[in-house]
């Protein structure tokens, strides 16, 4: 048994490590979400420093964490994003839509990579080389902007000062570069550069070339890094101004004396002032940016530009470049707590409430005159436990904005894919919902919003023809109504077509008639495999969907309603209980035992006489309720309830509805309605047929909650 303990000790160690991972994954996810939001809100023309810095910080945090935990693929990708964002926030580049797109895609890729790591590195890693290359291209792209191609410099005897062409990128993101360093007084400094390539894995390969001139070293480099990064690295050893990076000429690269090398005469004067630090702002210049300003420099200066940059270009470049002052981060107003701790708290408070109820019951017999203090103390306890329970339950509640925030991005992509114009409006983001529910409602809502965008909103031309504005609107709103939350997805699109749905239903052999009310017709679209879309797109239209949406929502004890007006739009309302942890239940007695029925599935209840029940084939029992025969399920038999009092028998019928069918449950008595805290039976025991969970009654006893869906299915077989 000694081993057992060692095992548990080792398991503890693993757990700790994975806990750190978990925190990183959560934080990285939040950072990526935040970055996405900021990118979407970014106004390309007037992007201010704060926004750009914020986006940069997000990428930077993810990169730092990924590198710490050894997720090199994520680190590499986010590093590229960071490089691009860094140039943006330094205003060396002007943000454009292509950048936002590639950054959003990279955020998605990072998420998928992280998800893979989180799942234990299973499955294929998403390839990122293309993204990395695209980001790098955009990051270096600035120098490609038409900045007047240095007419003065071009004829100068130093071809190096010409604005360099972008390094040809190979498929893998590797680029062949020719790097010239010098002229230097101490050539050893340049010799340190190859060491960098040896020391930094993944940087690339370097090969020394013949020195074209005295005091100058040339290297051929294969790398995936941006010029900016290379310069940053090299400046550990050599002043930036003495480094020239050129794309490797396609043919006979090393031997071409006319490309990228200084003529010996030009080098001579330059050697006089070799190492003097350039009088330019200290911040790292952009890739080739050093020479960007060359047009402004006198031609004479061009020959020495490699060694001593003229102040003019530097000044020209010193455009508004506010220092990247750290913006004060908002003080963290939240703490991160494991959900299991909150659940434990909820359990304990539940116990407290039961104890309090017991005390209240026992104290009722006491004489108020004698025990006045005790009784007033108990009254306080009553109030305080109630408040405490409410506050504890509210810990699990999170605002709907968490769900809503994912839709703008999705709609943006979807609308542009479909060529539609859509405005997205959200209302009631602050409405709170249980965390467990929030996670489960996201997918059904996503489906509904996609449906609205794909099927509901028309193409801009169609909208104009119908006399509507070109841009459609999808509204997502949430509000509390009684003990439920109502989430609505509205669009002002073409709405549902009654005739189309009825035709489609007939085609599929469903039992329909023209007399059906609108509401009944709309419910048809929840039938499995039902789609009225004329074209099946990859967005929707395959007919898998609405039935799944309805089933998922029903699994959460919720309902879906549709309201539509052809030509004007459609509204889908999802009604959910506020929390999964608490359910409205109806307690019923069978023999000595108590069972809980979910109130949402109870239709009605009534007393029956034995003769109202008829049998079919000596087995199944049926009862006629208002012209409808329904199967009868005797809970006593299903749960093998022992009978001690043979005078009593089950003569109360409860009609329950689940999965669209109704059955009648036969019970002894109805005990009442109450809110119950739903507990999992399987955490310590196993799945019990026809039971969905358990709860604790006011007297501390456990009662089982019936799975009405399973009971209904049971009656079908």
């Amino acid at each position, binding site marked *: 048994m000694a081993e057992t303990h060692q095992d548990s000790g080792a398991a503890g160690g693993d757990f700790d490590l994975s806990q750190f991972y978990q925190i990183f994954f959560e934080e990285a996810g939040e950072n990526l979400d935040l970055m996405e939001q900021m990118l979407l809100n970014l106004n390309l023309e007037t992007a201010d420093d704060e926004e750009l810095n914020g986006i940069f910080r997000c990428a930077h945090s993810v990169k730092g964490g990924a590198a710490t935990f050894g997720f090199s693929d994520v680190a590499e990708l986010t590093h590229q994003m960071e490089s691009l964002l860094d140039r943006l926030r330094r205003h060396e580049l002007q943000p454009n839509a292509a950048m936002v797109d590639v950054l959003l895609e990279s955020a998605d890729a990072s998420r998928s990579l992280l998800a893979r790591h989180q799942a234990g590195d299973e499955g294929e890693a998403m390839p990122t080389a293309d993204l990395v290359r695209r980001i790098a291209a955009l990051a270096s792209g600035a120098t490609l902007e038409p900045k007047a191609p240095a007419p003065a410099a071009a004829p100068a005897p130093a071809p190096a000062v010409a604005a360099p062409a972008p390094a040809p990128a190979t498929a893998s993101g590797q680029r062949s570069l020719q790097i010239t360093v010098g002229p230097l007084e101490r050539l050893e400094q340049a010799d340190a550069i190859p060491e960098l390539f040896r020391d930094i894995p993944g940087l690339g390969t370097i090969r020394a070339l013949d020195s074209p001139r005295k005091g100058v070293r040339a290297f051929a480099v294969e790398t995936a890094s941006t010029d900016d990064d290379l310069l940053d690295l090299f400046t550990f050893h050599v002043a930036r101004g003495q480094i020239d990076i050129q794309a490797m000429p396609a043919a006979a690269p090393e031997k071409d004396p006319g490309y990228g090398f200084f003529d010996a005469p030009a080098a001579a004067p330059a050697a006089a002032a070799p190492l003097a630090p350039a009088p330019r702002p200290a911040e790292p210049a952009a890739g080739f940016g050093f020479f960007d300003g060359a047009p402004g420099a006198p031609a004479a200066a061009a020959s020495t530009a490699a060694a001593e940059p003229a102040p003019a270009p530097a000044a020209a470049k010193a455009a508004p470049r506010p220092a990247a002052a750290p913006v004060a981060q908002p003080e963290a107003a939240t703490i991160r707590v494991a959900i299991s701790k909150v659940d434990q708290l909820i359990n304990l408070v539940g116990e407290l409430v039961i104890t309090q109820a017991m005390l209240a019951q026992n104290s009722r017999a006491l004489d108020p005159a004698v025990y006045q203090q005790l009784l007033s103390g108990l009254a306080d306890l009553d109030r305080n436990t109630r408040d405490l329970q409410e506050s504890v339950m509210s810990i699990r509640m999170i605002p709907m904005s968490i769900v809503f925030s994912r839709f703008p991005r999705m709609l943006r992509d979807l609308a542009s894919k479909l060529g539609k114009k859509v405005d997205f409006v959200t209302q009631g983001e602050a409405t709170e919902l249980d965390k467990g529910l929030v996670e489960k409602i996201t997918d059904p809502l996503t489906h509904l919003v996609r449906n609205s965008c794909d099927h509901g909103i028309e193409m801009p031309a169609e909208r104009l023809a119908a006399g509507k504005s070109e841009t459609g609107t999808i509204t997502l709103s949430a509000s509390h109504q009684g003990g439920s939350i109502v989430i609505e997805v509205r669009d002002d699109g073409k709405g549902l077509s009654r005739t189309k749905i009825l035709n489609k239903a007939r085609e599929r052999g469903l039992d329909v008639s023209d007399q059906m009310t609108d509401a009944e017709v709309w419910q048809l679209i929840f039938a499995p495999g039902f789609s009225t879309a004329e074209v099946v797109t990859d967005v929707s239209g395959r007919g898998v969907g609405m039935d799944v949406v309805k089933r998922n929502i029903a699994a959460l004890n919720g309902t879906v309603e549709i309201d539509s007006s052809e030509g004007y739009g459609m509204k889908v309302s999802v009604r959910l209980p506020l929390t999964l942890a608490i359910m409205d239940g109806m307690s019923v007695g069978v023999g000595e035992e108590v069972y809980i029925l979910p109130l949402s599935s109870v239709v009605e209840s009534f007393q029956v006489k034995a003769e109202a029940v008829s049998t079919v084939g000596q087995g199944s029992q049926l009862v006629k309720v208002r012209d409808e025969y329904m199967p009868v399920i005797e809970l006593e038999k*299903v749960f093998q309830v022992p009978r001690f009092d043979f005078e009593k028998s089950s003569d109360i019928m409860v009609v329950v509805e689940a999965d669209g069918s109704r059955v009648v449950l036969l019970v002894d008595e109805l005990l009442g309605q109450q809110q119950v805290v739903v507990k999992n039976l399987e955490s310590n025991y196993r799945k019990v047929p026809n039971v969905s969970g358990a709860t604790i009654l006011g007297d501390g*006893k456990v009662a089982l909650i019936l799975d009405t869906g399973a009971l209904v299915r049971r009656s079908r077989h």
Partner: protein
Amino acid sequence: MGMMEKLDDMTTGGAREYLTFRLDQEEYGIDILKVQEIRGYEPPTRVANAPGFIKGVVNLRGTIVPIVDMRLKFNCSKADYNSFTVVIILNLRNRIVGIVVDSVSDVMELPPDALKAAPEIDSVIDSAAVLGLGSLGDRMLILLDIERLMSAPDMGLVGPAD
């Protein structure tokens, strides 16, 4: 795993502490570190379609815990429920289970040399779940691998799916 290896496992750690309890005339011992608490018996809520020795589930401070009557499981001649009937709440890896026993006797430390391998005998207890026999003077202690015993499929505590 052979009997001697099993004993080896047990004895390498030096003396260990066991909680001992009685079922009818027999005395059993289980690793004290698996025991979470000991409480009085309260009638549990019956669960349909469970084997007879699973008495049902109780509320343990908000957690639903199944209760197994070891006396029924081990075919003891009688299983009364009175004020002395005790439930030992076990914490096994990630499950909490309560077992009903006649009484809890003692917590005792057994030196390795007090442990003897159990001979192969025919009994209702799976021999793999018997770690060995402990001798204390004229008392014989049956040491159970309670974790193994409780996770065995015939206990019906875990569903076929998991």
